[in-house]
């Protein structure tokens, strides 16, 4: 519950979220979502919920990112907006 660390991580999370919906390359958006999941995992571990952080690290940053990469590979890679 160190508030400086919290504030820094929350700032990074907001930057990652805005970046993930702004980039035009869908593969990059999937990678930024992976980084967003890792920052969330760090936030939750710092708040004391180690089980939730462990689950998010495996599920969100591992499996969900690979699902997005698989879908971006099989559909078009570039988005128009």
């Amino acid at each position, binding site marked *: 519950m160190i508030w400086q660390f919290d504030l820094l991580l929350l700032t990074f999370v907001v930057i990652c*979220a805005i970046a993930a919906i702004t980039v035009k390359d869908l593969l990059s958006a999937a990678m930024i979502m992976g980084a967003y999941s890792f920052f969330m995992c760090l936030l939750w571990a710092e708040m*004391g*919920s*180690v*089980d939730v952080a462990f689950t998010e690290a495996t599920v*969100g940053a591992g499996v969900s990112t690979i699902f*997005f990469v698989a879908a971006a590979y099989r559909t078009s890679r570039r*988005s128009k907006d």
Partner: protein
Amino acid sequence: MEFIVAKYNYWIVIVLLMIGLYAMIAKNNLIKKLIGMCIFQTAVILFYVSTAAKSGGATIPIIEHGHGHEAAAHAAHEAAHHAAHAVHAIDYVNPLPHVLMLTAIVVAVSTTGVALALIMSIYKRYGTVEEDEILEQIK
């Protein structure tokens, strides 16, 4: 000022929720909408987990001195004899939102998997994942 400083986690959660909501409404690309939904879901989970935290030296929800086989048998004896090693609720963070959010994370990844399967089916049928082009083809 104290109003802003004491509750700053709620501000950031609301900012994230609105980023996710904006992405789901205003983006044309279906995969971007799905990314917005993912951001929304993790922001809600962040909100719940942040209500579980306790200040003042509370630690993670794993009971100390609880390891080892003899500790388990010791705890079974203590339950019968009401001995010491009492566990105080003030020392540990609240475990109940953690349990609910474990379920929420797994449901989030399931929803993402099914939504990606739907997007791939739409791409195979219409040849594009942009919403306005799909709407033109439907007309």
